């Protein structure tokens, strides 16, 4: 089952400037790791009670296999919201339940998540089956 919201993701074109801005708006800095380099993307996560705020900047072109989707989204729609993360207690059970209910699931398989000790296994619900919202399903590992 889904146990809570994990994060809301915001796509930006200059993550260093965005981190500075959001530190001032939220009154809290990003995780100690600061801006993290990940495949195809740079990311920073701000801990907020209830649901964290994630900033993402694609570091690859629109044609790239990993991160290309975010680059295309940024080119097409500009900066703004790009996804919603939710915590699940059992990813396999949850993806099976959602597939059964007719949702389109994108499952990249095991994924070594974000930050020290914050590994997560993840899958996505395609925005076409969720009113335009890319939903990330995260299971703590």
């Amino acid at each position: 089952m889904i146990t809570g919201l994990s994060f809301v993701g915001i796509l930006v074109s200059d993550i260093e400037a965005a981190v500075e801005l959001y530190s001032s708006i939220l009154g809290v800095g990003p995780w100690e790791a600061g801006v993290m380099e990940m495949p195809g993307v740079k990311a920073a996560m701000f801990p907020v009670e209830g649901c964290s705020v994630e900033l993402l900047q694609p570091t690859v072109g629109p044609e790239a296999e990993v991160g290309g989707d975010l680059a295309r989204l940024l080119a097409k729609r500009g900066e703004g919201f790009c996804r919603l993360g939710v915590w699940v207690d059992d990813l396999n059970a949850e993806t099976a339940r959602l597939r059964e209910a007719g949702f389109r699931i994108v499952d990249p398989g095991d994924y070594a998540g974000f930050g020290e000790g914050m590994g997560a296994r993840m899958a996505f619900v395609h925005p076409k089956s969720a009113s335009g919202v890319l939903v990330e399903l995260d299971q703590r590992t």
Partner: protein
Amino acid sequence: MIKRLDHVSIVVRDLDEGLKTFEGLLGVKHSHIEEVPDQGIKAAMIQVGNVEVELIQPLTADSGVAKFLENKGEGIHHVCFEVDDVDKELQSLADGGIQVLDKQGRKGLAGKIGFVHPKSTKGVLIELAQKV
């Protein structure tokens, strides 16, 4: 000072369809539906853990939400953070050079609320709410 995230709001064309989708996805039924005539919307709340997912449908073609839907399509519309003192927060953001849509708090679904302009926040609409 931001205390917590209160809700994430998603704009949909049809609230009944949107509810079917998100109640199915999240595995929770909505708690209530309200109309907010001065914002030109109908809203439904789904409680997920200690925060809410809000679905909104525009009721009039000239509302800000209707324009968003027309330009960008369905998707995440805004996030709302709970604060202790909405007037003070709006003032402090404005003093810091951030453009706010409300200089002072006003009555909204989430309490005494005010909005920050997406031009100042990397394209995202932020609502601040003080519980009353």
